[in-house]
């Protein structure tokens, strides 16, 4: 009886899991394998072109300093966007989790996930309107300050960071919110009864206990930002050449898919290496 039940349970589990795994196979594994295959070819294997297996695409990364420099630039961008998002998002999550209650919390939550509702291109072009010279931001600042200010943030690294932070901020807010929610209010009360001020409670209690959530959000932001290309291209203009835009160029402009694939896998390897190096810290935060 127990055996048949276990068998039925297993079948049911399989039936429930299979759509997801099928989807992952079709949508992730197959394209990724195809890309891995392409990355070792001299040219795309269709359109009657001549091709053979080669390591040249990977060798290209090391032959000029350009790619490595751009990768480093992208990693720095990822780090800056992640740090800014955590610094902006964590206080917001704290207020949502520990200070506001009831209906106002729901309303504020809606505002947090609002970026998810709008098209990313629309979002980026709205920022372009705000940031460009004599745009919304420039006029607003000049309306307040008596002297003439030319911010003209458009087509600068700052514009790219602003656009990316706006897109990815909800991730760190949501993960931090969940971690903060799990902290029992009586812990904070206990710390206060022992004489701790707010800053001590933040550093010794709240930040260590919320660290897993903050780090999960940071990873969710860092990985896609390193490979981002839309925000750098549209908000960065001339200064918007990053590792992600170079990969995009290989696919849509130069039509050198094998090189684009190889650069993508190098990025994947570097990001995985960074996460592996950080994993002791991540694990310590979880206990």
């Amino acid at each position: 009886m127990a055996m048949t039940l276990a068998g039925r349970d297993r079948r049911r589990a399989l039936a429930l899991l299979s759509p997801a795994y099928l989807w992952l196979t079709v949508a992730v594994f197959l394209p990724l394998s195809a890309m891995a295959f392409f990355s070792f070819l001299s040219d795309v294997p269709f359109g009657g072109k001549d091709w053979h297996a080669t390591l040249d695409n990977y060798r290209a990364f090391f032959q000029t300093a350009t790619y490595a420099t751009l990768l480093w630039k992208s990693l720095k961008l990822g780090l800056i966007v992640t740090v800014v998002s955590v610094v902006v998002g964590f206080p917001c999550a704290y207020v949502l989790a520990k200070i506001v209650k009831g209906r106002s919390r729901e309303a504020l939550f809606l505002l947090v996930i609002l970026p998810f509702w709008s098209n990313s291109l629309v979002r980026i072009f709205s920022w372009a309107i705000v940031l460009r010279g004599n745009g919304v931001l420039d006029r607003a600042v000049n309306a307040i300050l008596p002297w003439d200010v030319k911010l003209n943030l458009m087509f600068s690294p700052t514009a790219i960071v602003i656009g990316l932070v706006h897109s990815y901020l909800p991730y760190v807010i949501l993960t931090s919110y969940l971690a903060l929610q799990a902290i029992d209010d009586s812990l904070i009360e206990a710390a206060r009864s022992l004489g701790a001020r707010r800053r001590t409670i933040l550093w010794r209690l709240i930040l260590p206990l919320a660290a897993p959530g903050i780090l999960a959000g940071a990873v969710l932001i860092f990985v896609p930002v390193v490979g981002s290309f839309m925000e750098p291209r549209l908000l960065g203009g001339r200064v918007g050449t990053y590792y992600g835009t170079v990969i995009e160029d290989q696919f849509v402009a130069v039509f050198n898919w094998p090189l684009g694939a190889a650069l993508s896998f190098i990025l994947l390897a570097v990001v995985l290496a960074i996460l592996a190096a950080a994993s002791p810290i991540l694990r310590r935060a979880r206990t």
Partner: protein
Amino acid sequence: MAEVRVENLVKTYGAARALDEVTLDFPDGGFFGLLGPSGSGKTTLLRAIAGFVLPETGRVLIADEPVENVPVEKRGIGMVFQNYALFPNMTVAENIAFGLDVRKVGAAEKKRRVTEALDLVQLGAFGARKPHQLSGGQRQRVAMARAIVTRPRVLLLDEPLSALDKALRVDMQIELKRIQREIGITTIFVTHDQEEALTLSDRIGILKDGRLIRHGPPREVYDDPRDSFTATFLGDARIFSGTREADGLRLADGTLVPGAQGATIAVRPENFQLSASEPNAPCRLRAHLVQKIFGGALGTCLLDWQGEVIKVVGRDADFRALPESGPVWVSWQPEHSVTISP
């Protein structure tokens, strides 16, 4: 160490008064038990003394110093929470040292005091453990050590033993009392368990609907409850009301209770005797035995009298001669009729 005093405390939540003009003295070095059913305001009173609840009106004094406008962290209190609230990211020793770190106590002094506190709660070897590696009773001791290591003026305990199983609770009651005696700190604790309050406290206060009903030494309050709430809440007494006559109290069924002094009396379940034949005792009633409950050395009998339940507690041996159910006599000695206000 200090005396605590609250004066005319009022705290409302919407229309409900959680504290209604509560005035009470907590003597220096004493062990004061706040007792009441849930929603009686006992926890609100404790949290008002701690500073987590800000009363609308009234005063809170610690060592004659008004503290209504002093934030929790500067009141010099120690508190043990119902769920212990141990910091899960710190070891036992770090938990205990937290209050000393905040006070910037030097390393050597800190180490000495943490060791001292661990020894006091008999957890000397557990300093390096994390809270999740401890049993419920051990966590309780750590919470206690953490609360007293800063040498607070007052120790506040919010239902400190309610999360423990019964055998452990009795052990911890003895332990709590020992620790309190050793450091001689003014202790205020909240409980809904009347036995716990009577065992531990040298004074108790009984609250109901935000009002302080009664306070005093446990024996005094228990022996002379004065009102029906205290009598029923503290000792599960049966209340009899009727009309006052020259030689006693005439109950609804016509029974005369001789010697009763007022229109309402209370009799405790352990003071009733049951017998199948008519007893000699002057105070007696004819009732119907509904159920006998075996409870080991002590048993309980539930009786029906005029549609109301009378509970009788006694040695199981004394109940054996009785039938499982049927008419019985309930009797008690006149000195066990306690006059109360209705």
